C-alpha cells in the first residue's frame, strides 16, 4: 500500500460518518423540519450497533440494529414536534442530551471490550491493483453505502415526483396542505429517514472507524454534520464535497504535524473547520441560488386546519 493510498483510505473513513449523517439531515430539513438531535441519534446508533454486534458476533446485524435504533429514536422527536407541536430547536437539543445520557447507560457494561470490526471488501485481482485497488475495491461496506446514498438522495430530491413533493412541503407547508399533500405524514417519513441515517453513521463509528464503545464517542460529529448541511446550502453533492474536504484537511493536518513543519497545532486543529466553512461559503455565494435552496418553512411548526 502506498502512502497516497493509505491517506485516501483514512480520509474516506473520516468523511463517511459525516456524509451519511448530513445526508439524512438534509432530507429532514428539505421537508421543513430542523432536527438538532443528530448527535444524540448518532450516539444511540453507535451503542446499539456495538451491543448487537457484540451479542450476535455479526457486524452486519449490528449495523441494521443501529439503523433501527436511530429511526426509533427519531420517531420520538417526530411525535413530539409533529404531533404535539413542541418547539423543534428545544426538542432537538433535548434529543441530543437524552441520547448521550441513555447511550452511556446502555453502554456501561461494554466499556473496555474490544468490538467486532466490519470486514472490508476484498475482490481477488481488483483489490490488488496498485494505487487505486484498495480505494475503489477494498473499503468497508458502509463507505459504498454512503456513496450510493448520496446518489440516491440527489436523485430522489431532484429527479422524482416524491422528492418534489417533499421539497414543496419544506418550502410552503400551507400551500402543500391546500393541494392535498399529507404534510405531517411526509415529515414523519423524512424524520425517520434522517434518524436511520444518523444511526448508520453511528454504526460506522463503533464498527469500522474505532471498533469499541466509549461514552460520547461521537465527539461532536453530529454537530459537524448539521453545519455541513447549512454550509452546503442543502445540496447533496456539496455535502459530499464538504464532508471529504473536512476529512482531507483533518488527516492532512495530522500528517503535517507528524512531519514536524512547526505550525502551531492549535491552528492546525481548527483548519478543517475553517477550510470547510470558507470553501462552502465560496461555492454558495450566489445569493439567489442559496435562497432558492433554503427550505422556507424550515423549523416552523405546522398545524393543519381541519
Amino acid at each position: 500500500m502506498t502512502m497516497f493510498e493509505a491517506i485516501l483510505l483514512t480520509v474516506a473513513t473520516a468523511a463517511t460518518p459525516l456524509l451519511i449523517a448530513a445526508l439524512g439531515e438534509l432530507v429532514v430539513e428539505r421537508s421543513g423540519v430542523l432536527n438538532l438531535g443528530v448527535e444524540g441519534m448518532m450516539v444511540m446508533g453507535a451503542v446499539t450497533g456495538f451491543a448487537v454486534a457484540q451479542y450476535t458476533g455479526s457486524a452486519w446485524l449490528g449495523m441494521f440494529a443501529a439503523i433501527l435504533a436511530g429511526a426509533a429514536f427519531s420517531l420520538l422527536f417526530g411525535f413530539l414536534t409533529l404531533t404535539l407541536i413542541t418547539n423543534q430547536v428545544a426538542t432537538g437539543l433535548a434529543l441530543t442530551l437524552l441520547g448521550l445520557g441513555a447511550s452511556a447507560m446502555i453502554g456501561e457494561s461494554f466499556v473496555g471490550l474490544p468490538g467486532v470490526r466490519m470486514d472490508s471488501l476484498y475482490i481477488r485481482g481488483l483489490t490488488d491493483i496498485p494505487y487505486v485497488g484498495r480505494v475503489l475495491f477494498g473499503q468497508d461496506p458502509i463507505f459504498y453505502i454512503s456513496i450510493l446514498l448520496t446518489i440516491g438522495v440527489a436523485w430522489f430530491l431532484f429527479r422524482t415526483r416524491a422528492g418534489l413533493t417533499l421539497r414543496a412541503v419544506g418550502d410552503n407547508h400551507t400551500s402543500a396542505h391546500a393541494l392535498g399533500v399529507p404534510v405531517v405524514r411526509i415529515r414523519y417519513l423524512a424524520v425517520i429517514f434522517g434518524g436511520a441515517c444518523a444511526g448508520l453513521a453511528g454504526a460506522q463509528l463503533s464498527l469500522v472507524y474505532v471498533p469499541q464503545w466509549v461514552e460520547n464517542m461521537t465527539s461532536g460529529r453530529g454537530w459537524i454534520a448539521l453545519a455541513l448541511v447549512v454550509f452546503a446550502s442543502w445540496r447533496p453533492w456539496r455535502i459530499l464535497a464538504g464532508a471529504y474536504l473536512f476529512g482531507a484537511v483533518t488527516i492532512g493536518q495530522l500528517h503535517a504535524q507528524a512531519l514536524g513543519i512547526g505550525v502551531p497545532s492549535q491552528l492546525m486543529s481548527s483548519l478543517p473547520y475553517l477550510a470547510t466553512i470558507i470553501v462552502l461559503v465560496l461555492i454558495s455565494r450566489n445569493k439567489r441560488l442559496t435562497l432558492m435552496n433554503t427550505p422556507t418553512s424550515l423549523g416552523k411548526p405546522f398545524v393543519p386546519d381541519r
Partner: protein
Amino acid sequence: MKKLIMALTVAASFAVAGPALAADKLKIGFIYIGPPGDFGWTYQHDQGRKQLEKELGDKVETTFLENVPEGADAERSIERLARAGNKLIFTTSFGYMDATVKVAQKFPDVKFEHATGYKTAENVSVYNSRFYEGRYVQGVIAAKMSKTGVAGYIGSFPIPEVVQGINSFILGAQTVNPNFKIKVIWANSWFDPAKEADAAKALIDQGVDIITQHTDSTAAMQVAAERKIKAFGQASDMIKFGPETQMTSIVDNWGPYYIERAKAVLDGTWKSHNVFEGMKEGLVVMAPYTNMPDDVKKLAEETQAKITSGELKPFTGPIKKQDGSEWLKAGETADDKTILSMNFYVAGVDDKLPK
C-alpha cells in the same frame, strides 16, 4: 447569654442529629472531568474510589459527580458535595484548582484533595503522579524494539504533564539508541477516539513502528493492532485491545492513596500536604511486559527497579534542550518545580512545541 444558649441548642441538635444522619460514616465525594466509562483517566480514578469502598466498607460512603467542566460549574459542583455532608472531597483534574481552593475557604472543616495542581491550603492537599517515570521505561523498550528508529507519540495538550512524558520517553530511548527519533501529533483533545485513531494512522503511514499516546481512549492501540505494529497503553491496562500489540501500559493506581487519605481523616491525622509520587509509592504501576523478547523484558524490569529504588532519575544530566543549549550538567537532576512547569523539549524530539 442568649448567644450561648443558642450555641448550646445548636450543638445539642447536632449531637443528636449527627450520628442519626451519618451513622458515623465518613462521606467522601469525587469530582470527575469525564465519564467513568472513558477507560482512561476518569476510569482509573473511579477504580480508586471502588478500591476505597471495598477496603473501608461500612466506614465510608462515596459519591461522585461526573463530566464536571473545569470552570464556574466546578465550583458549584464541589460546593454541592460539601453541602451534602462530604468531609473529604477529591477533585481530580488540573483545571479544578482555583475552584477547589475557593470552596475550601467556605468549608474549613471539610478536607479537600486536588489532583495534579500546585495550590495548597490548611484544608487543601495536592497529589500528583510521576507518570514520566513509566514513560522512561517505555522509551527504553521502544528503542530496543523499533526497526525504523522512530516512534510516534500522540499528545493531548502541550501542558507540562504531557511534555514531561515526551521528554522522558526520548531520554529513555537515547540510552539505547542515541539517534532515536519521535514524531509528535497533538490531538488537541483528551478524548476523541476517532481523531486518535486518525493520528495513529498518520504516524504509521509516515514510518513509525511504535505508537505511544497521552490521550485517553484505546483507539490508537486498536489501529496499531490492525497495522501489526507495537504500542504502549495509557492510564489503564489496554491489553484486551491489542493482545499481540501492547508491550506495557502506564496504569494510574490511585486506590492506595485514596485509602490512605480516607484512613487519615478517620483517625484524625489528616494534614495538608503536597505530594508528587511515582513508582516507589505505587502510584505508577506498569502493566505486564508482553510482546517482547526476554532480553528487552529484562532490561525494562531492571530500569523499572532502578527508578523505583531511586537509583535512576529520568531527568538527570547531561541533558541538552532541543535548541542545543545546556539544561542539566552531568550528574545534575531536575528539581520538582522545574519538572512540574516543563515547557520545552529536550534534544532529539522531532517536533516544534506549540506554545
